[in-house]
C-alpha cells in the first residue's frame, strides 16, 4: 500500500496494520526517515517538501510492485509526507513483511533506495542563509546501482 499525505502518521498503528492477522509473516522490517536539524554543515530549522501529485503515487506504486516481483512479500507499505516539516518530524515510512527476515530487510532497503531516486519529491530547507533547495546526492545513485538495475533516466 502507498500513501502520500500532508499529515503525520503513527508508526505503531501503521506497522501493526500490516501484520495484524497475517500469521504467515515472520519478519517485518521498517525504515523511518526523520528531519534532522543538521544537514551538511547547515543548521536546518525546518523544510518544505514539494511533490508532483499523480506521478508521486505512480512512482511509489511501481517501486512497490518491483519489490513484490523480487521478493516473496506478505505486505509492503510506503507513506511519504509533503508540506512543511520541522526537525524531528517523520518524513517517510517504508516497510516490508515476509515469511523470512532476509527478504524483509532487502525489500525494505530496496524500497527506500529507489524512492530516493525515483519518487518526485523536492526538499526546500530553511537555512541561516535563507531557503535552499537540497541537492541530490551521488550516494543515492550509488545505492540504487547496487541493486543491479540501472535507471539511466536519473
Amino acid at each position, binding site marked *: 500500500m502507498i500513501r502520500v499525505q500532508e499529515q503525520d502518521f503513527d508508526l505503531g498503528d501503521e506497522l501493526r496494520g500490516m501484520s495484524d492477522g497475517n500469521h504467515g509473516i515472520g519478519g517485518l522490517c521498517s525504515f523511518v*526517515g526523520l528531519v534532522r536539524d543538521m544537514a551538511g554543515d547547515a543548521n536546518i530549522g525546518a523544510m518544505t*517538501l*514539494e*511533490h*508532483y501529485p*499523480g*506521478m508521486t503515487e*505512480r*512512482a511509489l506504486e511501481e517501486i512497490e510492485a518491483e519489490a513484490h516481483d523480487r521478493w516473496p512479500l506478505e505486505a509492503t507499505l510506503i507513506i*511519504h509526507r509533503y508540506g512543511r516539516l520541522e526537525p524531528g518530524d517523520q*518524513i*517517510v515510512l517504508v516497510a516490508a513483511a515476509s515469511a523470512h527476515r532476509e527478504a524483509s530487510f532487502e525489500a525494505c532497503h530496496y524500497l*527506500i533506495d529507489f*524512492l*530516493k*531516486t*525515483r*519518487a*518526485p*519529491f*523536492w*526538499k*526546500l530547507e530553511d537555512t541561516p542563509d535563507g531557503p535552499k*533547495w*537540497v*541537492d*541530490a*546526492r551521488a550516494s543515492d545513485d550509488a545505492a540504487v546501482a547496487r541493486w543491479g538495475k540501472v*535507471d*539511466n*533516466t*536519473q
Partner: protein
Amino acid sequence: MLKLLYFAWVRERTGTASEELELPDNVSTVADLITVLRAKGDGYADAFESDDLVRVAVNQNHVGFDHKVQAGDEVAFFPPVTGG
C-alpha cells in the same frame, strides 16, 4: 497541445507551475522542446541553463531527453529528486 509542469527551482525560474503550449512543428523530442522553451525568456533560459541539472517526465514517467513528445503529453521538468 502540451501540458507543461515545472517543479522546485525549475518552477521558481520559469515563474510558473504549469502552462499549456501548442506543440511547435519543429519539436519531436524533449530536447527539441527545451530549445523552444529556452527562447521564451530569461527565466526559462535560466531554468534550462544546464541539461545536466534538469530531469524530465513525460506522462508521469521518468524519460531521457531523446524521448518523443506528442500532442496531449504531460511534460514535467524538475531537478533531481530529493525525497525520502
